[in-house]
Each structure stands twice: as C-alpha cells, then as structure tokens.
C-alpha cells in the first residue's frame, strides 16, 4: 500500500495539477466567444476531471510506474527461483505474492484517483484565477453548478476496475516470465503496454455501460 499509495502521491498530484490547468486554459480559449457563461469553465473542468481524466490518467501513469515495478519484482523472484522455493515449501505463491498487491491496489488507487480529481480541480483554479482568465467567484460557481453525484460513482468504478487490471496484468506478466534478463525486461514492457490498452478499452466499455 505504501509503495503504490504514498510512493505515487507526488507524481499523481503533479500530473493532476497540470491536467486540470491545461483543461481549464483550453476551455477558456474555446469558450471565449461570449455565448457561454464564463463560469461554465469551472463546471466543465470539474466534470471532465472527475469522470475521465483523473481515473484514466492516474491509472495509466500507475501502469507505467507501479505495474512495471510489480512485473519486474515478481519476474525477478521467478528467475532467482524464489517462487519455486516457496512452492516447494508448500506456499500458495499466487495467493501469497499477487493477492496482497491486488487488494492493496483496489483500496489505494481509487483513493489516489479521488485525490487526483481534487488536485486537478485545484489546478484549474491555479491556471485561471491568478492569470485573470476567470474570477475566483466564477470558477467556484462553475465547480458548484449542475453537480451530479453519480459522476463520482463512475470515477470510483473506473478507479476500481483500472486498478484491478493494472495489478493483475502486471503480476501475470511477471509470474509467468521465462528466460533471462531480456525476457524480464520484455515482461515489464508488456505489463505496461497490455495494462494501458486494457485500461483504455475498459474506459470505453464503462463509459457505455454507466451512461446508458
């Protein structure tokens, strides 16, 4: 939990700030015609960060950071015969090595996603209010307008599903690695590539299912 959560907090917050900031600046540019009220920028940033950017970006980044690490760690144990040693001792290695990682991930990653959503909205504020694109009142009015709490549920569902995908795919790649250091590197790369593809695929599927 420590490795996944606290160890990833800084990078997740940093990315979330910039996601929120860039989204706010871009929408501010696109909504500059005067037809749409300015406070809509805060509303758009809030919803897009909560529904899409916080869970997806957070989990894609964690697939690279945590997923590759898990694949390399478990793959290294396989190659050094640590897993064989545990098996011979009678340890159920899948339960002992993989299950705690999945449980930790499905608890911690949704929390990281929630933090990313909060920090992302703060990033939008930082990018628009001090620079004069919006007043503080306009941005906060946007954040408080048309709030649908179901969007938060959607965010957590995505966080849960993506965290399960990134840990299980990464652990699988490490657990069944064969060969030497080149194959170990490939398994680490595959962990990131396959988790990222699956995260994006499930992002689409969840969007379809939960918005019907």
């Amino acid at each position, binding site marked *: 939990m420590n490795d996944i959560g606290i160890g990833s907090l800084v990078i997740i917050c940093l990315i979330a700030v910039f996601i929120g900031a860039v989204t706010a600046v871009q929408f501010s540019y696109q909504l500059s015609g005067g037809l749409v009220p300015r406070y809509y920028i805060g509303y758009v940033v809030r919803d897009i960060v909560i529904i899409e950017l916080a869970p997806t970006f957070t989990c894609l980044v964690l697939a690279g950071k945590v997923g590759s690490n898990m694949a390399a760690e478990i793959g290294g144990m396989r190659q*050094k015969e640590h897993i064989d040693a545990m098996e011979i001792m009678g340890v159920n290695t899948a339960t002992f090595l993989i299950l705690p990682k999945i449980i930790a991930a499905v608890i911690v990653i949704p929390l990281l996603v929630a933090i990313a959503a909060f920090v992302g909205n703060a990033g939008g504020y930082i990018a628009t209010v001090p620079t004069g694109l919006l007043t503080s009142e306009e941005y906060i009015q946007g954040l408080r307008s048309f709030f649908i709490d179901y969007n938060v549920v959607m965010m957590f569902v995505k966080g849960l599903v993506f965290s399960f995908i990134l840990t299980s795919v990464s652990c699988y790649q490490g657990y069944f690695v064969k060969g030497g250091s080149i194959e170990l590197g490939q398994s680490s790369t595959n962990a990131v590539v396959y988790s990222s593809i699956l995260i994006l695929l499930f992002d689409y599927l969840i969007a379809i299912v939960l918005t019907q």
Partner: protein
Amino acid sequence: MIRIENIIKSFGEVKVLKGISHTFEAGKTNLIIGRSGAGKTVLLKLLVGLFAPTSGNIWYNDIDFVNLDKKEVREIRMKVGMLFQGSALFDSMSVEENIAFPLDMFSKMTKKEKLDRVNYCLERVSLDGVNDQYPSEISGGMQKRVGIARSIVLSPEYLFCDEPNSGLDPKTSIVIDELIKSITVEHNITTVINTHDMNSVMEIGDNIALLHMGELAWTGNKDEVLASDNDLLKEFIFASPFLQKLRDAAARNA
C-alpha cells in the same frame, strides 16, 4: 522413501526422460549424476512436483504423488526441504528471516520458539552470529549453509539438493557434503542430490543413479563405482585429465 516408476517426461517433441524407474532410500544420500543435459534437473523437478511427468508414477512412501490434488501436494511439500543451486534465499530478508520464513508460514510457534529453532538450525550448519546479515553480505558457501538451514527448519522427511557444490571451492564442498550427509543420517531423511561433483560421488554416494541422455545408465553405491566396468560411468567419473592420470598411475603401480 521415494519410488519412481517408468517416468517419461517430454517437452513438445523432445523426450527428456525415457522411462526411468528407481528407488531413493530413506536415511541415505541418493545421488543423481550425469552429464549436462542428461535430465537430472528435470528429474529433480519432477520429484518435487514443479513439473508433471508425461507418464509414470512417483510414490512418496505409499502416496501416489502424481495424482494428488493441489492441496494434498502442498501437504506433502510441507515435509520437503530443498536446497537450490543458487540457494534461492530471499534478498530482501535477513538470514534469520529467511530461515524463519517456513515457520512463519506453517507453524504456530511463538516468536521466542521460532528464534530458538532458527538459532538451532544456524548452529547445526556451523553459522553463528549472522542472523541479521543479508544474503548479499555473506559468501556463497555461507549462503548454501543458510539454504540448508532453511530447508531443515521444519524437520523435513525429504531433502532435495540441486547441485549443492556448484560454485564452491573443494574444501567448502566437502563441508557442505558432510553436513548434508550427517543431517540425512541424524533425521533419517530421504535425501536426493543432483550433482556433478566427483568428491560427492565418492564420499557420500550411498545410492547413485547415473543418467545418460534421459535413461538410467547405472545404479550402485560409492564402493561400487571404481569396480564397475560400465563404460558410461567410467567416462563420466574419469572425464578430467587429472583423474585419468591418477587412474593410469594406479594401474601402473598395480
């Protein structure tokens, strides 16, 4: 006692073991010898259940090991200790934690009892005061001894050693051999050792099986090795020029 009957193991089209039958006896050091690629490691992995045989049976006393379900295999494995070629010590754990790992997993001992057991095992392999050191901080020979300590911590009935002397100097190899032999006799363990080491063959070979290209080429004990006229055995034993010279000198003197 472990008995194997007509064991065949194939990987795709390649037949690595071609119908081997043999008995590994309790209280004895049972050696599997043979050239690289003969199938020794595959046989050892079959014995501990890391591979499943293509056909044939493996009996742990009266238990049909091949047809056990996963839970029953785990129960057998709790009676098994294994020393790996590279020791397979967990890098991120200290020596004490490595040896205590099976106790943490399968015993209900108190912390004090575990520590006493770990210290007993360390003493048994003549290693004192290394409890807090990490595997990377001790020598290869010490790592092997820690590996032996870990493999005997649950008082196994079966001990498997995959090339216990590889990478060790001759003197340390003898120490490791003597240690394995004495533990085997002391606890009446069925010990199976996969080795290339000629010293081991001649010193602790109570029951030797020579594998050649996946077939059992010779069986006997250390006293029968030199008297055997099996060409494959002679070729294997006297592979080194040094031993060939010794043999020729002994023949001349005779």
